[in-house]
């Protein structure tokens, strides 16, 4: 039997060579690309003074995900694509097919500030597939506990919306910490849900007094006081590293680590000073050290690694290799790169601390 689809594919491929048919589809509408998953911003809704929910129509390659998962989101800022990971706050498989991420603008966060303050409906974002194990199990436990702080509520919101939609809300306790009631992301919606659904119990903890002075954070002592059956509950904790660390040791000390799932925000990378470092070439397995003034190309060649190279002055781009980990500085521009997968010019880049090179 003649297979018509592969034949059509081959003809289309040869019509667009050396490009792919997908390149033409994406040129007309980025959402039509199956290879480069994109989405169109439908709305940017403010949640609090520094947090917005971005509603996105995903392109044809989107396959949905599980409540609580996160996605890589790419935005173009001043012509440069930046990628960051954000939790989905929408439930999976919304009837309108839209997805949402909820982003808090960090004071020094280039990407988060852009998303909250500059992103506009109609703009295109790039998406990755949903990933992560901070999700509900296939078989729902009878009793659940969610402990969140700040924007740690986002993946949990996705789960709560999912549970509320499916009309099978089990016994759920949510302890959420925020500065105050108005700074609580999804505060109103959560209070509404708790009022409507008897199975959902909401405890709000505030870390600022009415006068704005800092008061105690949410502690394990306070938590066990309001929730006396912690060991019987399957628990999800999401928030800043402080909260997650405390929770992990509490559950570990209680011998119930298997009943805890956590998700922490990525710690902000701090420049590690200019003393060079260890350079590891992960594919070839070679290792060397380089000073803050030694380009990676020179260090690699010295160590016997076969390095692609060209002009050795940063103009011909022959030496580009992907960064696998760590941080490098471009000697000519002073720019620092720390995103794994970034292509770096080894001839003019020096290590800032220990680095891994994908070579």
């Amino acid at each position: 039997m003649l297979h018509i689809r592969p034949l059509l594919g081959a003809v289309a491929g040869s019509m667009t060579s050396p490009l792919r048919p997908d390149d033409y589809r994406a040129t007309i509408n980025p959402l039509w690309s199956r290879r480069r998953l994109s989405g169109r911003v439908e709305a940017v809704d403010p949640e609090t003074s520094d947090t917005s929910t971005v509603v996105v129509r995903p392109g044809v390659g989107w396959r949905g995900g599980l409540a609580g998962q996160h996605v890589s989101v790419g935005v173009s800022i001043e012509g440069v694509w930046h990628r960051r990971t954000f939790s989905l706050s929408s439930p999976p498989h919304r009837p309108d097919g839209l997805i949402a991420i909820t982003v808090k603008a960090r004071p020094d966060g280039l990407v988060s500030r852009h998303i909250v303050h500059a992103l506009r409906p109609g703009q295109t974002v790039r998406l990755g597939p949903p990933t992560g194990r901070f999700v509900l199990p296939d078989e729902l436990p009878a009793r659940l506990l969610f402990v969140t702080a700040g924007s740690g509520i986002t993946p949990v919101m996705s789960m709560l919306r999912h549970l509320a939609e499916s009309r099978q809300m089990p016994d759920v306790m949510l302890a959420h910490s925020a500065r105050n009631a108005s700074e609580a992301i999804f505060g109103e919606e959560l209070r509404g849900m708790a009022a409507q659904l008897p199975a959902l119990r909401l405890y709000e903890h505030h870390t600022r007094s009415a006068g704005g002075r800092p008061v105690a954070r949410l502690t394990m002592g306070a938590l066990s006081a309001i929730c006396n059956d912690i060991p019987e509950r399957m628990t999800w904790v999401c928030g800043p590293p402080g909260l997650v660390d405390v929770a992990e040791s509490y559950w570990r000390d209680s011998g119930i680590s298997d009943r805890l799932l956590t998700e922490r925000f990525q710690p902000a990378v701090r420049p590690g000073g200019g003393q060079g470092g260890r350079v590891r070439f992960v594919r070839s397995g070679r290792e060397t050290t380089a000073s803050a003034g030694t380009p990676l190309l020179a260090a690699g060649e010295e160590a016997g690694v076969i390095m692609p190279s060209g002009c050795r002055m940063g103009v011909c781009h022959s030496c580009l290799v992907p960064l696998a980990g760590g941080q490098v500085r471009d000697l000519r521009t002073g720019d620092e790169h720390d995103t794994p997968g970034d292509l770096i010019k080894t001839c003019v880049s020096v290590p800032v601390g220990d680095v891994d090179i994908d070579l």
Partner: protein
Amino acid sequence: MATPTHLSARDIEELGEELDRLRAEILASRGEDDARYIRRVIAAQRGLEGGGRAMMFASLLPPAWLAGTAMLAVAKILENMEIGHNVLHGQWDWMRDPDIHSTTWEWDSASPAAQWKYSHNYVHHTYTNVVGRDRDLGYSMLRVTPEQPWHPVHMAQPLYNLALAVVFEWGIALYDVEIERVWRREKDLDQALNQFGSALKKVWRQGMKDYVVFPLLAGPAFLPVLLGNLTANVTRNIWAHTIIFCGHFPDGTTTFTEEEIEGESRGEWYLRQLLGSANISGPAALHLLSGNLSHQIEHHLFPDLPSNRYGQIAPRVRALCERFGLPYTTGSLPRQTANVWRRILRLALPGPTRPATGETSPEPVIPARAA
């Protein structure tokens, strides 16, 4: 040719610093407008290509054939010059867009991107106009400067340069395989054969597209579509050949010896790029269709700056040339083309010998650095 022996080592260093500052300024100001520019050029190119090919399907009507062929020729020119050449230079790598990136791009030219990047970005742009090192100096077959030794085969060069213009993309693909370096035992035969194989694969795919698939899809218009595609390809070849030959071979450009570039400083490197290149003056459309290689001087000084910025910095580069008393070679397309052809005709014959200076070697164009 005014040789800039009047420049001191300090002058050259200062020139280099000025150009470094100019480069840094443009790097820092790259942004959304530049990104929008390249995305628009790419979208326009794809639209023109699709539109041209669709138009040609109606080419039993002669005006449709003409319009379709013209659109396709312009699309192919844009694809090679303003998009392919410049993307493969890494001019747009800063956008971090994996779809517009020197490491992922493949172009509608017979030479596979990886091979071309080596011979062009590295060999040509690093050793620009160094006799014996820059293979683009006459493409190993033409005598374009009196410094190249004459050989009787050069008597035929006006003819084979004409032929090269017609089949330019194939010529470049073959040239990138560097057969003559295998002959001189500087290059491994297996490597050359591998490269030849991947070039052949591309030639095959392109041939299928332009001379089999689209003509067949056109049904009764098979022949007009085939001829239209052939016309577009040849037009693109002749155009690319013309633009590129005007970049380094007109009068006013200088060649260098390997000894002259030994221990070259950054300022001296800039100076060599400046003296070895020539611009083409003309309207905005010429700059776009030449892939901004009409700003060859600016391109050679800063090969990885976005092409849409060359026109912007050209007056400042020219002003620097005036300040340092350096030539800034430029002329209209007809003038420069006639000039290059005159040179190819003249150098088909032996000579001219250098002005009689006895046994001494030619004076270095670039003064040695202060010790």
